[in-house]
């Protein structure tokens, strides 16, 4: 493992009960438009959080602030006790933060195992190595394991361009799981999936190792409520409700605003 990872686990041990993610007073303005307003959010290590809300509620903007695509206008973001508000995306990735994208960004000319291998290689040394990995290469092993975790064993050597949409989304998750992440942001992983594929997605998400926490943005309430421990509802760039999945589902305000009085 690389030097920085050792520091991270040291840090993890040192911070002890530090929250995985802590947002305080985070807001984001695009000119005069308030995309995010006064967000206070705490996610514990290993917690599974769902962020729900209608289109334009600010969910993706929230993700982009957390990953470092752009800095928040005000407020602070702490990742496992460390203030990462000013850090570039690269630094947050090195500290164990991962993200999936709404539009799969995969390597279409390479196979499934190649894609995952590249993702694993990215945060470790030897990226310029001219030598093929040896038989007992640890990185190769992790890549193989990840193929199994996302149920893509039978298409291991298939080119990404030949995969179905659902399989590509599964691969996307595998990419996010590479390199021992501590926290993942899933951006609408269920979009465009068939019911069977959605069930598989729920299996994969609930089957993730216990120490890996995540936030999932979803429109599909079924998937979101089934995989999460806690739900945050956003509206117009602000958080307006937070609670356990069952509570949120039955809350009349949520129903009126988001579900339209019924749940389908």
């Amino acid at each position, binding site marked *: 493992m690389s030097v920085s990872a050792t520091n991270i686990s040291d840090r993890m041990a040192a911070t002890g009960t530090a929250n995985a993610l802590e947002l305080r007073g985070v807001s984001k303005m695009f000119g005069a438009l308030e995309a995010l307003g006064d967000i206070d959010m705490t996610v514990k290590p290993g917690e599974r959080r769902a962020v729900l809300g209608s289109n334009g509620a600010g969910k993706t903007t929230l993700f982009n602030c957390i990953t470092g695509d752009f800095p928040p206008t005000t407020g602070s973001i702490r990742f496992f006790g460390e203030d990462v508000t000013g850090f570039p995306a690269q630094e947050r*990735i090195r500290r164990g933060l991962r993200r999936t994208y709404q539009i799969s960004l995969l390597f279409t000319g390479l196979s499934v195992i190649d894609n995952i291998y590249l993702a694993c290689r990215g945060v470790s040394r030897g990226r310029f190595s001219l030598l093929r990995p040896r*038989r007992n290469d640890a990185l190769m092993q992790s890549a193989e394991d990840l193929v199994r975790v996302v149920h893509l064993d039978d298409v291991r050597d298939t080119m990404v361009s030949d995969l179905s949409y659902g399989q590509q989304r599964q691969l996307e998750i595998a990419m996010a799981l590479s390199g021992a992440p501590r926290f993942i942001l899933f951006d609408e992983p269920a979009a465009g999936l068939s019911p069977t594929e959605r069930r598989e997605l729920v299996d994969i998400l609930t089957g993730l190792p216990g120490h890996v926490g995540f936030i999932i943005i979803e429109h599909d309430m079924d998937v979101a409520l089934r995989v999460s421990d806690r739900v945050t509802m956003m509206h117009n760039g602000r958080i307006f409700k937070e609670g356990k999945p069952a509570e949120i589902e039955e809350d009349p305000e949520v129903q009126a605003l988001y579900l339209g009085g019924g749940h389908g």
Partner: protein
Amino acid sequence: MVAIDSPRTTTTDMRRRIASVPPVYWVLGILLLIIPAFASDFVMFQIMGWTFILGLIALSLMFLGGYGGMVSLAQMAFAGFAGYMVAIFGDSAISGISQGWPWWIVIPLALFLTVIFATAVGWLAVRTEGIYTIMITLAIAAAFFYFTRQNYELFNGFQGFNSVLPPELFGIDWRGPEAFYYLTMFWAVTGFGAVLYVSRAPFGLALQGVRDNPRRMAALGYNVTAHRVAAYAFAAVIAGIGGILLTWQSAQISPGTVGIQSAIDILVIAVIGGLRHPIGAFIGAFIFVLLKTFAVDVLIALGLGGERFQLLIGMGFLIIVFFSPDGLLGLWEKLKASRRRDPLTGGQR
């Protein structure tokens, strides 16, 4: 394939690897080894030798274009640069410039300088969108051409260098047809094998990742610019070797070798063969060499003047790009796929 799931003994592993090499390569390999037995000097030196050389240079373009998504028109400039360095630091008829250093200094030095040159060019060319690469590398190749033509102190201007010969190692005249054939074949096979091997090493895989999705690669922690520049450096070694062999073949190097025409010829060769697989570079080179050698007769037979060679090449190139942009290899793939398909149901047989 990088398949490592259970420990095996070395012998079964080797046997598996040998079995996985397509039979075509075995046939080709044996054929290449025994050709000197029945071929004429002309075929060995001029046709096969030139095929291996041009194939090497086109291979460097294929590496950058096929695996890296960067179509560089500067590969011939790099090849010529290496040839010039050998002429300048080694022996030639221009005793005023040539340093006359021993070959075991000159050749590594020439390749090293070529890599430096290519790294600089790569750095200039890769920090913009991929589509600019063709333009920028073409302009740089042109700049190099004009420079070699104008500069007399180092490059001896219009005339260039002649009598640039390979060293007499082991008492062999390496410009003799058979020796030269084996020399160029050795380097062609080595280059081919190296590119194929590296394509599945982290270096090659990362390059392909950068080709397919630079944004994702950056998000995964890769330095996209560094990988692209490193690819130029790697390709320069291959192009440099080809350039040195080219200089030895004609025993001379001049601005004409690195002109715009030659630069475009290499692109034509790589595209005709196919950018998807390293063998395409050599297929394209073979066809180009055949055309160049026999086209004059064909043209005269067709009633056109013998000088209309460019027209022939251009039309051939246009036809290939029009109907099979993946070159002849792409055509071959399509044929194989259609034969496998059941004409009634469209499914695989």
